[in-house]
């Protein structure tokens, strides 16, 4: 089998003012026709750079500094722009991550297809249109002829990604590079798109490179896998071998850090290979420390009680009420979280799970229903002293580590803000001491206090967020997808930290996630949400072994099959 693409010793550099950054170092890869190569790695590993380097579309000022890229036996390096333009689209197709932004919003889908088709094939307008319809049908779009006249915004996300694939196929390429093609999509749609790519690969004898951070995607689609770490390919091999019996230390850590859906573990295996800097800092003695004062308030009973909660948003305004389009984001939701319990809320995007969290946190006011926090009604008189007091016992950790910290404030001021505002200490010196302790306790070290958020990585920022939440001495912690923006390896350490805190402080936790394996590791009980409603509430192990609701079963079916993952480092 001859190689469709053979990359050898590829170096890519980005000259910056702080010196030249090597985004890829000596990367060698091969792809054969009809084969799916998975290129996996965490953020900053340089995986996307490889894809862009192949078709010579590196972001400025990046450049290929060494190595060769042989495509069907021809060298692609050093080609001029005109030659590359003939290769792009015609012989190598690209699929990008976000279907929302990959299509020109002002042109009909048909026009974009036709212009791409006409570029390679000298076809008449009607022929080109026929071909466009054919392509849309191939990627599974029904009523293709009618939909040619539609604009991208009239398609759903999954459909748009199908259009993107059709566009990538329009020039009848031999190689497709798909850069995180499913990351922006919901699980159920993700599976369909991956199936489509795999099917096209087989049918057309295409070579496919899938660039992803998601081991699940690799497990589902790849034939062979190349693992990248800090610009280098550390390991290449058959998918079963890499996932089941990795050889390189990094690969081993990475695979180990992937949350297992198939069984519950006590803790995530620590991944020191990656978070090399996570030295064990001095931890505080909760019993005697300022932070532990809330321990004495503990009581038994319900921490959060939600009754018949409802909230709708206006989607489209109109003078006439009947023309107004409303979205019932939360619809008759009822559940109770007991003190000290970790309660999970799962569902796909748009299921209303984050909205429920924000309702409880008081960021939105409900249209209907009631919420009690530690027995205190916080809906009917939200500004009463008792309601405020109850609310203070409740803190939240957010999804995006970048936007959840005010970049203009020092870490000290961020963490100290609730302490200072509620005057929880007697002096500024004490405040500083406590902030230092908290930062030590979450594994950052007290010295971090004087820095600004942008000096920290995503995982470290989540630790700052956690420290800020602790500074209010909360009894309830709402975690809204706290790790979904993080790399797998970092995710493990953060989840471990949350588990530790929960045990030490006896926190009640409301854990929101779309990621079933994570939820399984974290939660005692789980509520499954869909279209603003709760489908079922079950004990975690019950849900995973014997789901009651049809939708729960569907979700579980869609979980990436991890059969290939061996029991390595379990």
């Amino acid at each position, binding site marked *: 089998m001859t190689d469709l693409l053979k990359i050898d010793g590829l170096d890519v550099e980005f000259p910056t003012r702080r010196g030249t950054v090597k985004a890829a170092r000596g990367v060698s890869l091969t792809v054969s026709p009809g084969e799916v190569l998975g290129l996996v790695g965490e953020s900053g590993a340089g995986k996307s750079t490889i894809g862009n380097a192949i078709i010579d579309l590196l972001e400025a000022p990046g450049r290929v500094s060494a190595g060769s890229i042989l495509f069907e036996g021809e060298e692609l390096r050093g080609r001029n722009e005109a030659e590359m333009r003939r290769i792009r689209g015609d012989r190598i197709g690209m699929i990008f991550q976000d279907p929302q932004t990959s299509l020109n919003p002002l042109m009909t889908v048909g026009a974009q297809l036709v212009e791409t088709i006409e570029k390679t094939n000298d076809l008449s307008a009607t022929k080109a249109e026929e071909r466009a319809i054919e392509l849309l049908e191939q990627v599974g779009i029904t009523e293709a002829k009618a939909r040619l006249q539609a604009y991208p915004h009239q398609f759903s996300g999954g459909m748009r990604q199908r259009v993107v694939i059709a566009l990538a196929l329009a020039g009848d390429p031999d190689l497709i590079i798909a850069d995180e093609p499913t990351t922006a999509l919901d699980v159920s749609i993700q599976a369909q798109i991956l199936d489509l790519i795999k099917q096209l690969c087989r049918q057309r004898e295409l070579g496919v490179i899938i660039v992803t951070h998601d081991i699940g995607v690799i497990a589902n689609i790849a034939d062979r896998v190349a693992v990248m770490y800090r610009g280098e390919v550390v390991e290449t091999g058959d998918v079963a071998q890499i996932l089941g019996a990795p050889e390189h230390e990094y690969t081993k850590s990475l695979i180990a850090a992937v949350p297992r859906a198939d069984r519950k573990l006590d803790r995530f295996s620590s991944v020191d290979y990656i978070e090399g800097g996570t030295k064990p800092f001095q931890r505080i003695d909760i019993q005697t420390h300022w932070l532990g004062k809330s321990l004495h308030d503990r009581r038994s009973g319900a921490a959060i009680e939600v009754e018949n909660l409802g909230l709708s948003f206006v989607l489209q305004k109109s003078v006439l009420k009947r023309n107004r389009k409303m979205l019932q984001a939360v619809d008759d939701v009822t559940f109770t979280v007991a003190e000290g319990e970790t309660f999970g809320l799962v569902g796909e995007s748009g299921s209303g799970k984050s909205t429920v969290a924000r309702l409880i946190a008081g960021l939105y006011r409900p249209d209907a229903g009631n919420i009690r926090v530690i027995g205190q009604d916080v809906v009917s008189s939200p500004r009463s002293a008792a309601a405020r007091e109850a609310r*203070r016992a409740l*803190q*939240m950790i957010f999804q995006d580590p970048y936007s959840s910290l*005010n970049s203009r404030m020092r870490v000290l001021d961020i963490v100290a803000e*609730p302490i200072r505002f509620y005057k929880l200490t007697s002096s500024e010196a004490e405040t500083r001491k406590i902030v230092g302790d908290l930062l030590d306790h979450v594994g950052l070290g007290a010295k971090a206090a004087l820095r600004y958020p942008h*000096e920290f990585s995503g995982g470290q920022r989540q630790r700052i967020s956690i420290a800020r*939440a602790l500074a209010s001495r909360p009894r309830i912690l709402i975690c809204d997808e706290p790790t979904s923006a993080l790399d797998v390896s970092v995710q493990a350490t953060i989840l471990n930290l949350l588990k530790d805190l929960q045990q030490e402080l006896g926190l009640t936790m409301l854990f929101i996630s779309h990621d079933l394996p994570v939820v399984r590791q974290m939660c005692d009980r789980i509520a499954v949400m869909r279209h603003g409603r709760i489908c079922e509430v079950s004990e975690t192990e019950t849900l995973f072994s014997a789901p009651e609701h049809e939708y729960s079963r569907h979700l579980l079916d869609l979980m990436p099959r991890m059969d290939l993952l061996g029991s390595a480092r379990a």
Partner: protein
Amino acid sequence: MQQDHPMTRWERFKDNDIVWSFLHSPGAIVAAAITSIAILACLFAPLIAPFDPFDPSQISLWDGKLPPAWIEGGQPQYLLGTDNQGRDMLSTILYGGRLSILVGLAAVCLGMVLGVTLGVISGYVGGVTDAVIMRIADVQLTIPGILLAILINGIGRAFLPLELRQEFAIYVVIFAIGLTDWPQFARVARGATMVEANKEYVQAARIIGLPGWRIMLRHILPNTLRPVLVIATIGLALAIIAEATLSFLGQGIPPTTPSLGTLIRVGNEYLFSGLWWITFFPAIALVVLVFAVNLLGDWMRDALNPKLR
């Protein structure tokens, strides 16, 4: 960027992308230099200028209309010549520039404070407050700034008592220009606020239980300042031009304490009579000043827009 010890303030300052970009952009450095020299020269005009053009007892009409020192007939103590009243052009330009810059700065500050306050409130509170503030801004935008300034000036002239008018001419101009500026600031601040208000750090602050004013002041305001600063710089250039235009149309600063615009208006009458220096030097001073401020604003816009860096 993982260091064991926090950087000192100076290191952090130098390491700042914007500062770095500034130190590596010759245009920005030149512009900043010109702007600071101009601003300093004008602010310290009383110390630098050879004469005090506002002190009538220092003026001798017989020294009027002298050409610059290097031209035949010029006198060395009047480097850039004298105007029709016998005032030293260099001193007049320095004092006039001072007035122009002060008016510009004050007008921009007024517009900025008003606009940012209303904009942040509008963006954060939303609802009816937002609608009311933005409708007022719409009305304001419907009447072009320069017209409004002319009108406010006209009204100010007619409305203020005689004795106050002289004294308040400058304030009326500042008010007129500042008032026409605020919707711009309000829109930008509102936009930025709406972006920031949806960010999770603001939600975190709300969950902590901080009151709205404190969130706006401590969290949102500092994060909206970047785009506001860009607008303010460009706004300063526009305000200086607006003042000059008003004065040129005879609706601005009176000729007894002339700004650059007033000087150009007066000088323009001598354009054909060979006394080119009376209009040329103030015009050059104005253009260079505005150009420098614009250059700075331009660089700032690029530097603060991470996408284009």
